[in-house]
């Protein structure tokens, strides 16, 4: 086996094997479990770094296994896959650290970390899938692997949330399956191809292709939480904080958004999709989602629910970028895939810290919390500023390219939607920031679990991850032009997607 096959295989195995071993470990072996988790996450990250340089140099990484004649499990680590893989393996490491701190002493940790690893494996599989069949296999695996995480706490509410999640995502999966087979009946097996795989089809297939597009995008749109398919997301908030971080930034909604990217660019091809007239409806749905999510977020008092609706809104930036024709919008959408991930995970880490340290779950309880937890609150503030697309943050970079894309695509209204969304984001994040920094703290916190020790306002495993991601939020904004930045990478992908066209 050469490295071209070995590296992507090892990337999958580096979370799959630890997951399987963790399932078999007794609950009490927490040290072994932690070692396995971290070894897996670090190995994966190292592999990804090697492949980053390899792909930039033009190396091929991939392998195939024929399941049935004409049906292949195919993996290909292209630039787009790496964008997603890098994001998820980097954030997986941080989330694992965070989860180890967060779940200390709680029951069923081997079950939790086992499914956690499976979840990341599924995400990597989705990223590397080279055809629709493989994509679907891992897309459904992700559904199955996340269900136990959402239901983890075992309360009535948790199981209810998990059941709703499952209902939405399984129906979504059924739509995707139907779409894939529909497309297969028109065009045969579809391999993901830069610039689109359906180029040679005649005009008589237009209706069929439109239906297939609608089925596929509605199917992945469930995970991407496009309105009106977003109902599961706020309810899945009952899950423990590391799971919410995973759902919102690394795995589930990202897998949905990533699916939209693959379907538009590498199945239909952005120009063919434009010619079919399916991009404008997608843009309208995305814009509706952006505004609706933000409006709903305004009135939520529970911090995690507010963040959940914010996710609904922010993830659709990606869909909006994808739905606008032109390289600038593409760059904006792709770069936001990464940027939304690091910003939102920061916010969820912080929300988890507030809850775990002080028992603070609601915005109304957050008065003066920055005095008790200044570092966490600083990270939260940076994440929130990023969401508002404030200058010097990653959010600003996303918004810049998306707005430029809207202008280039003659969709000025999309630019207005983005501006309105920034204002709405400010309207629901700034009051929190104001409360945290400028109000008097209460005499006693709701439930103080962890006491302060010097500068450590909470456990260091809880503190480190949000600080790192907050720093990354700033870094991705300030250093956007460096060679390995998300922006540079998104430009590389966009250049490849538009390579064959006149644009």
């Amino acid at each position, binding site marked *: 086996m050469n490295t071209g096959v070995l590296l992507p295989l090892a990337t999958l195995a580096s979370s799959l094997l630890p997951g399987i071993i963790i399932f078999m470990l007794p609950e009490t072996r927490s040290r072994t479990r932690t070692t396995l988790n971290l070894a897996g996450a670090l190995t994966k990250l190292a592999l990804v770094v090697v492949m980053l340089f390899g792909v930039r140099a033009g190396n091929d990484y991939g392998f195939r296994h024929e399941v049935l004649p004409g049906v292949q499990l195919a993996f290909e680590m292209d630039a787009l896959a790496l964008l997603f893989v890098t994001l998820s393996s980097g954030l997986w490491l941080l989330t694992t650290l965070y989860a180890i701190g967060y779940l200390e002493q709680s029951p069923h940790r081997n079950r939790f970390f086992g499914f956690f690893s499976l979840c990341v494996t599924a995400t990597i599989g989705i990223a590397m899938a080279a055809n629709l069949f493989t994509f679907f296999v891992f897309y459904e695996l992700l559904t199955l692997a996340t269900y136990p995480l959402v239901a983890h706490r075992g309360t009535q509410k948790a199981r209810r949330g998990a059941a709703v999640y499952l209902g939405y995502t399984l129906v979504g999966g*059924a739509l995707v399956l139907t779409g894939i087979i529909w497309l297969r009946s028109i065009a045969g097996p579809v391999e993901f191809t830069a610039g689109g795989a359906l180029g040679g089809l005649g005009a008589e297939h237009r209706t069929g292709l439109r239906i297939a597009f609608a089925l596929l995008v509605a199917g992945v749109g469930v995970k991407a939480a496009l309105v009106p398919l977003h109902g599961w997301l706020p309810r899945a908030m009952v899950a423990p904080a590391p799971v919410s971080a995973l759902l919102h930034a690394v795995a589930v909604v990202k897998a949905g958004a990533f699916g939209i990217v693959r379907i538009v660019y590498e199945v239909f091809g952005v120009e063919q999709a434009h010619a079919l007239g399916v991009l404008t409806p997608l843009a309208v749905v995305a814009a509706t989602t952006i505004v609706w999510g933000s409006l709903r977020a305004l009135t939520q008092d529970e911090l995690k629910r507010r963040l959940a609706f914010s996710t609904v809104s922010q993830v659709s930036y990606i869909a909006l970028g994808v739905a606008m024709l032109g390289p600038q919008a593409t760059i904006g959408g792709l770069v936001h895939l990464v940027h939304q991930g690091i910003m939102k995970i920061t916010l969820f880490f912080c929300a988890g810290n507030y809850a775990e340290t002080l028992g603070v779950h609601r915005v109304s309880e957050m008065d003066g919390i920055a005095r008790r937890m200044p570092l966490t609150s600083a990270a939260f503030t940076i994440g929130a500023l990023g969401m508002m697309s404030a200058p010097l943050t990653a959010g600003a970079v996303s918004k810049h390219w998306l707005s430029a894309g809207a202008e280039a695509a003659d969709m000025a209204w999309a630019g207005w939607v983005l501006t309105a969304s920034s204002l709405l984001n400010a309207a629901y994040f700034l009051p929190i920031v104001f409360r945290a920094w400028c109000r008097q703290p209460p005499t006693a916190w709701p439930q103080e679990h962890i006491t302060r020790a010097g500068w450590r306002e909470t456990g260091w495993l809880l503190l480190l991850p949000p600080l790192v991601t907050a720093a990354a939020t700033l870094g991705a904004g300030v250093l956007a032009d460096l060679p390995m930045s998300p922006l540079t990478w998104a430009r590389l992908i966009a250049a490849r997607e538009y390579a064959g066209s006149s644009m």
Partner: protein
Amino acid sequence: MLIAWLIVLPLAWALAAWLAGARRGATIACAGVLVQLLLALALAREVAAHGPFTYAVGGWGAPLGIDLHVDGLSALLVLLTEVVALPLVLYTRAWLVAQEQDGTYLWPLLGLLLAALHALFVSADLFNLYVTLELLGLGAVALVASGGERKQLAAALRYLVASLVASGCFLLGVAVIYGIHGTVSLADLAERVPADPTTPTLLAGALMLLGLMIKTALFPFHGWLPAAHGSAAAPVSALLSALVVKASFYVILRLRLSVYSGWAEQLDWLPALLGGGAILYGSWCALRAERLKMLIAYSTVAQLGYLFLLFPLLAVGELALTAGALQILAHALAKAALFAAAGIALLASGRDSVAGLASLAGVLPLTWFAFGLAGTSLMGLPPSGGFLAKWLLIDAAIMRGQWIMILLVVASGLLAAAYIFRILSCAFRSAEREQAVALRPVPRTMEWVAFALAAASVLVGLEANAIAGLLGTGGAR
């Protein structure tokens, strides 16, 4: 020779197990099935290498003697029988010890059942098919009754009546065919029955089909199945749901592909329609069932429906046959795993209710994984064998333009998910039920068997190519 051994061996160990008594009988049975597995592997290998072949028992060919015929499909099903039976005999052995039962009659009956299955899969004539079906039915009824509980006896009686009526129909059909065409050999009949057969031949076909549909428990003839499979001892339910109902389906498929291949196309919609009804009705009942084993039994009713969707699609060729074979394999493994896991739950908690599973939350992780993996296959989620079967079925349906069928298959996957997650969601009830219910210890062997069967039902999907190859080289006649 291999085939003859496969039929003689189980009979031989059945006798030996009966003579040796229950304790040593278990060991003999395990050894016997292990050898059978090796023989079945050798058989599959031979068919894959040299193609289908006919074996004349004792050197006397048809019409005087008995011919046995092996092709890809029959070799595959014989192999499946062994792959399901070996874990289940290990399971049964541990189960009997845990239940403090001796199982005097269990082992001989098991041998008889396996011998009948093997003989059925390689039968080359209608009369042999009848005899093996009858043996199979009697063995299965006796196994249901072997637990000796009141409700088991009642279910067994019902099963017996259904089985006898079905055998009667089938035998009548065979007699009519013999009267008209003067032979019962499938190969000869395939040549003699004209493409446009006479009314009596059609009637005979209808009678045989009716009998076989009753035996396969196709909706609306499924009445006997939930009671029989739901009340039998766990390992027996596993064996019956996994293998026995598949045998009569195999006969339908065999007849459809050989004797009635010419004209049956016009009538293919009938079994497909009933199959669709089975999926919807079976799933609906599984959703409402209160007892765990009833839920699983109704799931069998639903899953058997998939097989009958196959008939209108047979015209697309090997693809449809592969879909059917995969569905048989995946369902057999998954259902055996589910019943095995249900047996563990029953043993541990002493309760056979779906709600009662909550008392097992947080313990017996292997069993929960067995439920989960087997469920994945039944729901048709990737990468399981059930998923590939569904994928191929939809593919074939698109080729034939059967849009309603596509909708049905997709929707039924969701229905299956709904009833499977009734079971799985119980695994997470820990937070509310911390009060420890006293659980009985479960032998590890039983847990591993359930898990291994479930894992196999998922992994069989990854080997689909080999299965399609075996079906292709030794294709059905």
